Structures are given as structure tokens and as C-alpha cells.
């Protein structure tokens, strides 16, 4: 790795930000001094004659329960996380139940450590690893429990296999004590400890014995060569229930005596209600009552549809939004944000950029990316019940402890008075990191004390309240000389998605938003003079994390602009990228996609191919998109994807996630934007914001590589290269360079 060490010393200049994180966080709103990451939250709820060895395994005389630490947002957490434990415990599918983790600092996400340290992912120098270790320690102390950042595997690959190994070895030790046979002579299989004479002792029959001995904490997970399930095609545990229509999502839950709520909230996101007239709604069928909320109104009825119809009939007067009412003014704010007073950070500076820009041929281009919605198919919802003791809440959410904080703050309770039950979710893409449903559900349930309330957002309300993906403009300059790229000066002005989320989570940060560096500074090409700078626009719409976050916009800007420079230098887009790539195993990703697509240069005849390479969340992904011009517009024919995740732990789901990421990236790049008029988003259903439907979906060929020294995530990294690879393909086919999303404003698609 000597090469990478050199790269980091030579290429990256870091600001003075504390090494313990590119982002320094404030105190946690829900910090609870009584519990720490080393406490096992399962211990308190343990039934009689039961045992727990760690926060992920619980055994009672009648069942084994494994904890899925993260939220399942379609990425397969509810399957792969328990299977990693079961692999080590020698449990088979069907021999255990799965439960989602409750709020606890024990479930802090170790997978964020790399993203928070101010080093690019490919830099594995001792200094970078030391910074990551410090972020990890901070995460532990803060107890940051959050699903996101493609961390399902990076966070849990080690710790869940260790948790399973500890359980296995402790059960063996208990069996050894009971039988008088040495541990070395025992083995485990299919939920049983097996004695040398073939006698089987079920794990559930060992719960009492195991509780009496200390857990075998030094147990080691097995070598991957011994795996029964992991690394091989396996059936996701949730597939059958989902196909049979039997899986209950949050929106499907029901409680005795439950009533249904629908809301109409200020479309000027977060601003108050001024006045309302509910006279028409009051007598409508099924309506029980109408409630005033801080930011709107709620109708309580006997059926969700009655509630939605009635809340539609309420006339509201709203306080104006805190951001510009009209979209054109949002763009104006961004245009004027490339100024020192809005500087986020100069993330990286190499060489003498100003002098180099005067050398050779100058290339300048402005790129744009609009606000985009998340809009998972299951709308925001939740069930809430407030009693004198506190609140119980059933909602699918990615940040359990922040749910406690937000709900408690909304109704004047303490976070520990909020009992949170995570639910299966119908997608998220970043939506279920936000809190609008949580906050208003708490307000509603608090006014309806003693009655369980199920809140379902109408699709229109969900669109109106959806805190969008960041809006951004890039002003990139570069120069080429003698067939080489000599300079790239990348500047982005954007809203700050992660900072916004943290602030709404009760942990405001004053540091620059590290997500605005994603796709901007982690550029692994030998360009001798390089600068990457972010500016943070102020006073615009609140924004939040959207599948692949910062890299979803900057990946498009950077990889399109690099393509422009490559063309200006008269080079082949694939060969030039391979030649410039300065991380050997990242180069292999590009070489793999070149081989898969049989890249041989221009296709001609109205066809074109584009390539793009982006590392996000530590995962390098390269994509080739092939398009053809038809009488009715551009058709996307095929996509080839190569991704290096260190280890493909769940091959079937891996392919599904990668294909989904490509479709997400392409669909939104082609035809999605959210625009404001009179302070409200104008797109309020899927016909205005539909992304990709099956008729536009290309064939997508996927290959996973295992050269990275760490296990990496794959939920988000296939997204960022999709848009630039498509734009680059359209340029190759038509000569037209599209520099703004959505592309369908500039060219027709079949």
C-alpha cells in the first residue's frame, strides 16, 4: 500500500478540523448518561430462564431471537444481519426469530468511522487509520445509532460474527459443564451442541446453564472458507413473506381501539399554521375529531380514507416558508454562493492550480442538479399511543434514539419515556432518517391520550413534506495540454444535506458538511494540479441525505467534467481513466467494466457508450452505459457495472442492490426534479416524479470484485456513476453534452 500512502501525503491537504471527525458533533439531544455502549439492552427485558450474551443474541427455553441491528429499508438487513450471527452459531433459517433493535447506545454504528475521518477511502495510511480509530471512539461514546451510509456490512460484518461465535462457544461451555465433557470434544450443528456419543442438546435447553457462566468473550469467528451460508447464493429470510403478501409493514399494523389520522401540514416545510377553517370537514363521514397542530391540522377518523378526504376539505392559512417562494430564486441564491463568505471547505489542493489553468487549453463548464424527492412507495406513517407514563411509537425509522428525542421534544417528555418499536419499511432512500411523521404523530397521540392513532401521510402530503436531496451547482475548470489533463479545479455550491439532518436530530454541527466533499475530492486520477472546494448555500430549502447523498450530485459533476477534459485532450474515455487511475485495485474496477462491456472505442451508427467511476462510502463503482438514438429519443440499451466490496457476502442480494442502485441513479437523472412555487413543492405524485418504470429499464450486468482490504457496502455506491455514465454515453452518441439533471429537459428518452 506504499503507493496509497504517498498519494495521501502528496495529494491531500486537510484543514484544521479535529482529527476525531471531519464533522465534530454537538452533544446528543438524547444523551442518556445512565446507559453506555457497553451495556447490553437485552438484559433488562429478559424473560425467566433466559440468557443473553451480547446485544444481538437472546435464548429462552422456547426460542432463539437474533437482533437485526439496523433498520430494514429494503436492503436486506432483516436477513443478512441475523444470518451472519446464525452462520457462527450453527443455526439454520427457521430456527430463530428476528427482532429489530430497540434504541440503545450498544447499537452505535461503527460503519460511519471511515466516512467521518478526513481521509479519502483509498488512503489506508497509518495516519488515516488512526483518524478512523478516533472517529470510532467518538461514535462509541456518542452511541450514534443510525442506519445509513451503506454501512449494513461495514458496521456489522465483524461484530455480528463475533457475537455469534461468543454465543456458540458459551453454549458449548455450558454443555461441557453439564456433561462433564471437555469443550474441545464438543461440536455444534443445527441449533444443538453435539456430544461425542452423538447426544444432542438443543441450545434452548441450555439457556439456564449458559446464564450461570461468564460468556466466552475471546471466541473467534470462523474463516470464510468454512462458511455454510455466507458468500453463497442464499434465500433472503424475508423473501417468502414478501412474495406471499404476509409481511406486515409499519403501515399494515393494527391495534385494538385504534383510530386513523391524516394531516395537512404547512408546505413551507416546518413553518407554523396561522389559521384554519374546518367547518366543511367536521361533518364528513367517519370523522371523529379535528386537531390543531403546530404546523398544520389533523383529522381523526374511523378509516384512513375518511381522514384523508376530510383533511383535504380543511382550509388552512400558512406562515410563509423560510426559503424563497419561487424556484428561480433558489437557483439565484446558489449562483451567488461561490463566495468566500459561503466557503464550506477547500477539501483538497495539489500543485499550483492557478498557474496550471493558464497552461494549455482551458475547459470550463457549469453543471446543475435539482432538488429531488425520496418517495419510497410506502408513505410516511406510524402508530402512536400516549399514556400518563409516556409514549409508545411503532414506526419504521433509521435512527431509533433520535426518534425518542424528536417525539419527546415535541410533547415535553424525556427521551427515555418514548418506547420505540421499529417496523419493516417499504423503502426509504433517506426518507426515514427524517422526522416529520414522528413529530406530528407525537403531537396527535398526545392530544388523543389513551387511544392508539395510526397516521398515514397521503402521497401528496408525503411529497409536500419530503425534505429533498441537495440542490447544487458546479463551476468546474480544467486544462489539457499535450494530450494530458494538467489541471482540474472543481467548485460546488450546494445546500448541506447531512448538516441539516444532524440539526433536525438535535445535534447541530458548525463544521463544513463532509458530504459536499463526496465525489468532489475523492478523485483517484493522476491530475497534477487539483483543487476541490465546496460552498454552502444559505437560506434555501432544508435538504437531507438521499441515496448516495453528496456523491449523487458531485459524482455527476466530476465524472462528466473529467469526460469533457478527456475528450478535449483527444483521449479515449475508458483508456484515459484506466491510465490516470492511481489506486491499483480501483484501476482493476475500471479494467473489469471495460472487459465486461468489451470497450473498443466509439460505436457509431447513432449508438454511444459512456463510462464513469465514483467511489462513495468507500466502495469504488464503475459503470458503462450504452445508448442508441431512435426516432422517439434516446434508448438506454445496456449497463455494465463493476463494484469492489472487499467481500460479496450475499451474492443474490448484492446483484439486486447494484441493479436497483443503477436504476435509481438513471431514473432520477432522466426525469425527476422538485421545484418550488409559492413556497410549496409543485410535484405531488408519481406522475410528476416517476423515475424509472420497467419500459425504460436496460439490461444490467453486474460483477462484484473482492480486492478491497475492507468489507464495503453496496446500497448507495452504484448510484453516483449512473448519471454521468449516461450523460457521457449521450455525448458519445449525439455530440450533445448534458450538464443538468433531469436530462429530459434537454433530450427525449424512449
Amino acid at each position: 500500500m506504499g503507493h496509497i500512502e504517498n498519494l495521501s501525503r502528496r495529494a491531500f491537504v486537510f484543514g484544521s478540523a479535529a482529527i476525531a471527525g471531519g464533522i465534530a458533533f454537538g452533544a446528543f439531544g438524547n444523551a442518556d448518561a445512565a446507559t453506555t455502549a457497553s451495556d447490553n439492552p437485552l438484559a433488562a427485558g429478559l424473560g425467566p430462564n433466559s440468557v443473553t450474551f451480547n446485544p444481538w443474541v437472546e435464548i429462552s427455553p422456547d426460542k432463539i431471537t437474533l437482533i437485526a441491528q439496523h433498520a430494514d429499508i429494503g436492503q436486506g438487513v432483516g436477513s443478512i444481519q441475523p444470518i451472519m450471527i446464525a452462520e457462527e452459531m450453527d443455526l439454520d433459517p427457521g430456527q430463530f426469530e428476528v427482532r429489530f433493535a430497540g434504541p440503545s447506545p450498544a447499537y452505535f454504528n461503527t460503519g460511519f468511522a471511515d466516512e467521518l475521518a478526513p481521509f479519502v477511502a483509498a488512503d489506508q495510511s497509518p495516519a488515516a487509520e488512526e483518524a478512523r480509530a478516533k472517529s470510532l471512539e467518538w461514535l462509541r461514546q456518542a452511541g450514534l445509532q443510525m442506519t445509513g451510509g451503506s454501512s449494513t456490512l461495514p458496521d456489522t460484518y465483524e461484530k455480528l460474527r463475533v457475537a455469534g461465535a461468543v454465543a456458540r462457544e458459551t453454549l458449548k461451555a455450558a454443555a461441557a459443564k453439564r456433561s462433564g465433557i471437555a469443550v474441545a470434544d464438543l461440536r455444534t450443528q443445527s441449533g444443538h451442541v453435539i456430544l461425542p456419543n452423538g447426544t444432542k442438546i438443543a441450545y434452548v435447553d441450555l439457556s439456564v446453564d449458559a446464564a450461570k457462566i461468564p460468556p466466552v468473550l475471546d471466541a473467534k469467528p470462523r474463516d470464510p472458507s468454512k462458511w455454510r451460508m455466507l458468500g453463497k447464493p442464499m434465500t433472503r429470510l424475508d423473501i417468502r413473506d414478501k412474495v406471499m403478501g404476509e409481511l406486515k409493514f409499519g403501515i399494515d399494523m393494527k391495534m385494538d381501539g385504534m383510530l386513523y389520522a391524516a394531516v395537512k401540514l404547512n408546505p413551507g416545510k416546518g413553518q407554523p399554521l396561522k389559521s384554519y377553517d374546518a367547518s366543511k370537514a367536521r361533518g364528513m363521514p367517519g370523522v371523529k375529531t379535528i386537531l390543531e397542530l403546530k404546523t398544520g391540522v389533523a383529522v381523526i377518523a374511523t378509516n384512513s380514507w375518511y381522514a384523508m378526504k376530510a383533511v383535504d376539505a380543511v382550509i388552512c392559512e400558512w406562515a410563509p416558508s423560510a426559503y424563497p417562494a419561487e424556484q428561480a430564486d433558489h437557483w439565484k441564491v446558489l449562483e451567488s454562493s461561490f463566495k468566500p463568505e459561503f466557503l464550506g471547505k477547500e477539501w483538497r489542493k495539489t500543485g499550483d492550480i492557478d498557474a496550471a489553468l493558464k497552461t494549455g487549453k482551458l475547459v470550463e463548464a457549469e453543471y446543475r442538479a435539482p432538488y429531488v424527492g425520496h418517495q419510497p412507495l410506502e408513505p410516511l406513517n406510524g402508530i402512536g399511543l400516549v399514556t400518563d407514563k409516556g409514549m409508545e411509537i411503532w414506526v419504521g425509522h433509521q435512527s431509533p434514539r433520535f426518534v425518542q428525542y424528536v417525539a419527546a421534544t415535541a410533547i415535553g417528555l424525556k427521551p427515555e419515556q418514548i418506547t420505540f418499536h421499529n417496523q419493516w419499511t417499504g423503502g426509504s432512500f433517506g426518507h426515514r432518517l427524517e422526522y416529520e411523521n414522528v413529530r406530528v404523530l407525537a403531537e396527535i397521540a398526545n392530544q388523543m391520550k389513551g387511544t392508539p392513532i395510526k397516521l398515514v401521510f397521503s402521497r401528496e402530503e408525503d411529497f409536500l413534506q419530503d425534505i429533498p436531496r441537495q440542490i447544487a451547482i458546479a463551476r468546474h475548470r480544467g486544462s489539457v495540454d499535450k494530450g494530458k489533463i494538467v489541471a482540474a479545479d472543481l467548485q460546488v455550491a450546494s445546500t448541506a444535506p447531512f448538516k441539516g439532518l444532524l440539526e433536525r436530530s438535535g445535534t447541530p454541527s458548525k463544521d463544513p458538511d463532509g458530504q459536499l466533499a463526496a465525489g468532489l475530492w475523492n478523485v483517484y486520477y493522476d491530475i497534477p494540479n487539483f483543487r476541490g472546494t465546496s460552498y454552502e448555500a444559505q437560506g434555501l430549502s432544508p435538504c437531507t441525505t438521499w441515496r448516495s447523498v453528496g456523491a449523487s450530485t458531485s459524482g455527476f459533476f466530476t465524472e462528466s467534467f473529467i469526460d469533457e477534459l478527456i475528450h478535449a485532450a483527444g483521449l479515449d474515455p475508458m483508456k484515459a481513466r484506466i491510465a490516470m487511475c492511481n489506486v491499483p485495485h480501483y484501476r482493476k474496477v475500471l479494467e473489469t467494466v471495460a472487459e465486461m462491456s468489451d470497450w473498443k472505442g466509439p460505436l457509431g451508427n447513432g449508438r454511444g457508450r459512456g463510462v464513469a467511476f465514483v467511489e462513495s462510502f468507500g466502495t469504488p463503482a464503475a459503470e458503462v452505459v450504452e445508448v442508441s438514438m431512435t426516432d422517439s429519443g434516446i434508448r438506454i440499451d445496456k449497463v455494465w457495472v463493476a463494484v469492489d466490496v472487499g467481500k460479496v457476502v450475499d451474492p443474490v442480494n448484492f446483484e439486486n442492490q447494484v441493479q436497483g442502485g443503477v436504476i435509481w441513479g438513471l431514473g432520477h437523472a432522466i426525469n425527476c426534479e422538485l421545484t418550488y412555487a409559492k413556497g410549496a413543492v409543485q410535484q405531488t405524485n408519481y406522475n410528476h416524479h416517476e423515475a424509472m418504470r420497467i419500459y425504460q429499464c436496460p439490461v444490467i450486468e453486474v460483477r462484484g470484485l473482492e480486492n478491497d482490504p475492507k468489507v464495503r457496502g453496496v446500497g448507495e455506491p452504484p448510484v453516483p456513476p449512473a448519471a454521468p455514465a449516461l450523460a457521457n454515453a449521450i455525448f458519445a452518441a449525439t455530440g450533445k453534452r448534458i450538464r443538468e439533471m433531469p436530462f429530459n429537459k434537454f433530450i427525449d428518452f424512449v
Partner: protein
Amino acid sequence: MIELTVNGTKRRVDVVPEMPLLWVLRDELGITSPKYGCGVAQCGTCTVHIDGMAVRSCQAHIGEVAGKSVVTLEGLDNKDQNPVIQAWLEHQVPQCGYCQTGQIMQAISLLDLISNPTDDEINQVMSGNLCRCGTYPRIRAAIHAAAAKKMAEK
């Protein structure tokens, strides 16, 4: 009181006739495989069969469904043996799974109409069913596999 047959059982509901079938199924009868996604026939996740045809249940007023026979995924005959269900399991189509009940009901209807659909025909019939996770390549493969299985059984 409005009477209809759901999954072979006669049910009576006391709601206004304008209420969409979707909300009768979900909130009145507790049948949750038809999902709410858009309410305006843009996503297809609420798809059920009415008298054998795939219908968006968010658009069918209960008053018009009176006396008809509604089948949701829960009530498919011989569900385990259904070639579409089997293909969906074999191909592990779902990610979040929220749209899949509607996709499956639409795909069953597609294969009733066209026994061996081309990709173009799949595109035409399935484009009303939105999947935000991006399972389309698997949906396509599963429909082809189900068609082959169905024809082999004949």
C-alpha cells in the same frame, strides 16, 4: 351495508359507496397485501383481481364493486403452486417488497392474457407498476420463467 365477495367469503361493510375498495380491504377488513402507494392509479401497488381482471383498487369505488368477486394475493387459489409466485420466490424479486404484491397480481393477469409475453409486452403491461427499489430486471426474468413453467404444465 354493501356486500361483496372477498377471497371467496361474503363480506358486508358499512361505509360510503365512494370509498375506494383499497381502503375497505385495508382498514375495514384487515386485508393488507393491497398497499396504498399513490391513490391515483400511478403506482399499481394496490392491484387486486375483480372478477378475474387486474384492477387498481384505489380507483374502484366500493359501491361499484358490490356483488362482485374480489381476490387479493392472500386469496389466490393454490398459492404455493402458482407459477408466478414460484418464479418470484426462485428469482428473489423483492427488495423492500412493498410494490411486489401488486406486481405479482398484475403479472398473473398478464400471463392470463398473453401466455408467453415478449419483453415489449411485459413492458407494456407492467409499466403501470412502479418499483422504487429497482427490481425490474428480476421482475422481467420471473415473468419469463413463470410463462415457461405455465406452458410446460399444459
